[in-house]
């Protein structure tokens, strides 16, 4: 049982780390700011989400687990808002000049 | 090399870097960044004193930690006041420079 949980943790965290790498590569390789924004949001949502999912079975208390989920939700909210704001700023600039 | 020693060496390097920025950069905002790096290097040195003072069941000596917390607040106050002064200087003289002759006469 314990081994099964550990395998789950390892798989989820590896997947999360891969999304972070994808986000960084996207930030470096994509040609314009809007596509880079797309790469960024994937890393934020899925990267952190999968790492939190992997850490959940390792949490030592219910409150600890709830805090992990809260961290993920807050980052989701922050990254969604920032993505909107940056996209607006980019569109604004595209029109203004 | 242990984590505290490594953090201490990082702190020492940060003090040097911050001092260099504070001395050399002509732009006041960049001097402020240097000042903050210097401060945070000193705080890290306090941090290793705290960590090496781990005793009595505490992972780190609480006294240097409390001093660092106080220090962070005071450094923030100093930074905020300097930024306000700098922005006022810019509003009043149209330039962000510490040279005494600029702003007093406009021949520059």
């Amino acid at each position: 049982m314990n081994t099964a949980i550990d395998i789950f943790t390892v798989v989820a965290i590896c997947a999360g780390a891969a999304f972070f790498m994808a986000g960084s590569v996207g930030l470096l390789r994509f040609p314009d700011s809007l596509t880079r924004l797309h790469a960024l949001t994937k890393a934020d949502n899925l990267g952190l989400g999968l790492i939190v999912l992997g850490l959940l079975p390792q949490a030592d208390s219910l409150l600890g687990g709830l805090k992990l989920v809260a961290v993920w939700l807050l980052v989701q909210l922050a990254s969604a808002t920032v993505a909107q704001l940056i996209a607006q700023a980019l569109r604004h600039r595209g029109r203004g000049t | 090399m242990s984590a505290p020693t490594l953090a201490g060496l990082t702190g020492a390097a940060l003090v040097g870097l911050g001092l260099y920025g504070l001395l050399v950069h002509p732009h006041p905002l960049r001097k402020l960044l240097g000042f903050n790096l210097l401060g945070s290097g000193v705080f890290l040195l306090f941090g290793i004193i705290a960590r090496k003072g781990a005793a009595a069941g505490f992972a780190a000596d609480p006294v240097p930690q409390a001093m660092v917390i106080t220090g962070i607040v005071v450094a923030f106050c100093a930074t905020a006041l300097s930024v306000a002064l700098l922005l006022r200087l810019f509003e009043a003289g149209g330039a962000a420079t510490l040279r005494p002759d600029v702003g007093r006469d406009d021949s520059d």
Partner: protein
Amino acid sequence: MSVIQALDISLAVLVLAVAIWTIVSRDAFAAVVGYVAYGLLVSLVWVRLFAVDVALTEAAIGSGVTGVLLISAAVRLRGTEAAVAAEWPGAGSRVLAAALCMVVTAALAAVVLTMPDPGATLAPEAARHLAETELGNPVTAVLMAFRALDTLLEKVVLFLAVIGVWSLAADGNWGGIAGPRRATNRQGALAFLAQLLPPVGIVVAIHIVWIGANEPGGAFQGGAILAAMWMIVIMARLAEAPAIGERRLRLALVAGPAVFLAVGLMGFAVANAFLAYPAGLAKPLIVFVEVFMTLSIAVSLPMLVLGPPDRPSS
């Protein structure tokens, strides 16, 4: 080399790389962005040093509130860099400055490397007296009881800094609305964030102040989070910044230092020393003072970030 050593070394290298960037970057905005990233990395270093209270403070201040302060300043000062470019010291002075800084770093590094391990410590002393304060978090005990005078003075410094910033207002704007004038357009996404985040932030802040007695946390960290929530509301223009002449604002600013001072003076009467707590009442009194300190911090930090008023109140 173990995994944890590799992690510590990469963290140290990253901190230094970002710090070097903030010094050598040509662009002030890029340097400030580097500093925000630096604050985040340093708070990870503090977690590795097992100083979670400091990590929390650094996270809230280093990469949070200071970041907003410096980013707004960098954006407002853009275009001033070209003018000061001529003021760079000559190559000779720069080499001299670099050599001096290297000497300072080398001296500090030598101190670090020769530091005894385990070193001098006040931890046993703090542990011995911890029970008298009835607190579980030794850092809070040092801040609020053993070295309470430092903390009281720190709060006074915070208050004086607010007065200093306000005193920069032009005569006609005295008593006016804090901070620069803001555009009136409300951006949908930002307003959404500013409505959703503060309720959560307030709960987390109260949680951090409350557990600060026994676990990492405390008045400053909680107050800084509350301050950040208020600033988000102001930045989203859901609420106007307060006028600095407003009585409620001024009361909130002095509440922390004033209550702390009053409790300190009461120490003369009930425990024979300034800032001494009567036996058995230490914890309730400390929590009582912390509540007012949290309020003052939550109000002072936005005032420092917003800056002096630049328009009259009506």
